[in-house]
């Protein structure tokens, strides 16, 4: 493996990690506050779609990214209202959001662009052209988001309260902390990051909207969140590792050392080995996924 390939794989893995890391970091924050969502797959897909629309309407890719975030925010609010305020089950809405995306996006592609299935996005985000591939500024944004999220979560009053709300909402409530408010906005933040990740896929990374383009990344991101032990920094590393094995698998494939299907398994097998061998027990926030009711 020559130097160029190494750099290329690195760049590939960095580009590939963005949606996974953003989603994982968002999910970490949301679950630290005690709200579980498994609808990120749908959020990624829908925000890729709506982000692209916004980018094309405004002519600015950054607006597209914001559009994706807004999509995430709206879905996060929906999830937040159902789980935090109405005290509903945390898992069901996510399943619904995923299903919804599978209907809305293919239907929307036809309704909006007149092309079925896929659309090449006209406006994409500037990126650094290198000899080994493009490097999006969103990679940097992702790293910063992970770092800042980590810092805020573990170093500031806000983070302390968010963690308290997810560990023991009763304790937080008894100290005058508005549990519902913190939980709700944490959910929104989590989904907003996923929305950013989705829009990144369409208006920055791939330049295309495709009706199934989330392709399981929402679930991978959840696995990565658990893998990280609900820590944004570890989620950054985990997401990058996954992207790395993914890129490595793509790079190794043309050598046909073993049947292609086994190469494609690589990222999943490696994740499993790392988790089983090294990480082991991860302890979720104690009230994760449990509605908090006073009476």
């Amino acid at each position, binding site marked *: 493996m020559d130097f160029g390939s190494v750099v290329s794989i690195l760049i590939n893995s960095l580009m590939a990690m963005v949606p996974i890391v953003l989603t994982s970091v968002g999910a970490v924050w949301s679950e630290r506050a005690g709200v579980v969502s498994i609808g990120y797959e749908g959020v990624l897909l829908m925000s890729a779609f709506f982000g692209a629309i916004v980018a094309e309407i405004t002519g600015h890719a950054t607006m597209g990214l914001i559009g994706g975030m807004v999509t995430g925010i709206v879905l996060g609010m929906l999830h937040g209202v159902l789980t935090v305020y109405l005290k509903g089950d945390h898992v069901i809405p996510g399943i619904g959001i995923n299903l919804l995306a599978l209907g809305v996006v293919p239907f929307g592609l036809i309704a909006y662009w007149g092309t079925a299935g896929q659309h090449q996005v006209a406006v994409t985000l500037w990126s650094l*052209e290198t000899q080994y591939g493009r490097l999006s500024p969103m990679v940097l944004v992702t790293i910063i988001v992970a770092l800042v999220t980590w810092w805020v979560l573990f170093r500031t009053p806000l983070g302390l309260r968010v963690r308290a709300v997810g560990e023991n909402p009763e304790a937080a409530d008894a100290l005058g902390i508005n549990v519902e408010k913190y939980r709700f906005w944490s959910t929104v933040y989590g989904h907003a990051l996923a929305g950013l990740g989705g829009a990144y896929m369409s208006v920055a990374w791939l330049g295309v909207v495709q*009706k199934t383009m989330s392709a399981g990344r929402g679930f991978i991101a959840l696995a990565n969140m658990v893998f990280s032990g609900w820590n944004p920094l570890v989620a950054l590393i985990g997401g990058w590792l996954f992207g790395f094995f993914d890129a490595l698998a793509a790079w190794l494939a043309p050598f046909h050392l073993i049947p292609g*299907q086994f190469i494609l398994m690589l990222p999943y097998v490696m994740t499993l080995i790392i988790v089983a061998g090294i990480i082991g027990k991860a302890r979720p926030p104690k009230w994760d996924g449990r509605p908090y009711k006073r009476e």
Partner: protein
Amino acid sequence: ISGGEETSTNTKGKIAIVYDVGGRGDLSFNDMAYLGASKAAKDFNLQLVELQSNTEDDYTKNLETLAQQGDYLVIIAVGFMMTDAVKKVAAEYPNQKFAIIDGFDPDMPKNVMMILFKENEGSALAGALAALIAANSGKDKVGIVLGMEIPVLYKFEGGYRFGVKWAEDYYKQKTGKDVSIDVLYQYTGTFNDPAKGYQAAKAQLDQGAWVIYQVAGGTGVGVFNAVDEYLSSHKQKMGPPFAIGVDSAQDWIKPGAIIASMMKRVDVGVYTAVKDAVEGNFEGGVLELGLKEGGVGLSTVDDVMAMFNSLPEDTQKQKLKELGFNSKDELKQYLENTRKQVPDWIWTAVDDLKGKIINGEINVPKAFNKDEITAIRNAKTWQEMMKLGE
């Protein structure tokens, strides 16, 4: 209460088309089938009913539902995966005419027209084009990125390899120089993850592939983007390196990065089936379309423009704007310029191969299963491959 009634009063009848799970927008045979069916519907003043399939389980149900309704001139099933379903439903409704794209069964009932394509022949042209472009640039690798590993794709891979080997030989005879062109190939395991296609193509470019043929549906879109990105990072507007599209004339998607597409004229097949049904000439059995019949082939600029024209007006306008063209003519000009990046002798050579295949002098092998594709992969010369095909 019937949604279709009011429109059907002013049409002469109905035809129906059932897409497979890839569905419309695969930039591939489903889209091409739609193209043919909608053209036929317009030409013969018919109403077109489209049925999407959610999963494979829907095929039988979809076909049965239509057959039960009983008022379709012909029901077109798109995709080999519907073979069993068509066979079953056609046997139950012997008076209903069916056509199936890509599906073959020796015991298929008589009311089914099986429309097959010789993708291996078209892919051979793609392979020859790719290899000659590489050799001409002094490179020794070409690539092919495929979708999930399913035997149907072996036909493409086999044909492509055949074309590459044939081109090595041709190049040696023309220039006297020995070349050996490697084929980097990978099955990405999916038809609908553009990111996977992008990564695969990038890896192949890194490893020196100079032209990449994509046979990967939605995943393949990523291949175009990877090549396009390579060009822009090397401050190039046009290749080489190039990508080669598949199924429909995909060149318009990334003009400059796509040198041509291996077209599979599903539209022609569908149109033929409808026409035959309308005119009372419908006959069951196999209709096999190869290079000779114009069922497969490399796209010409006209093909691309025709494909482009079939897009909705708005989409066309938007696309032109996005590409920075003021008119369709400019697009056309651009496509022509792209092709000029490849010397004429190469185009001539590809035509040469095409002629030989059409007149039967050359027989492109068809790989149907793992053993056959393995044999082709191991063959040293095109002649050896041809023997395998016999």
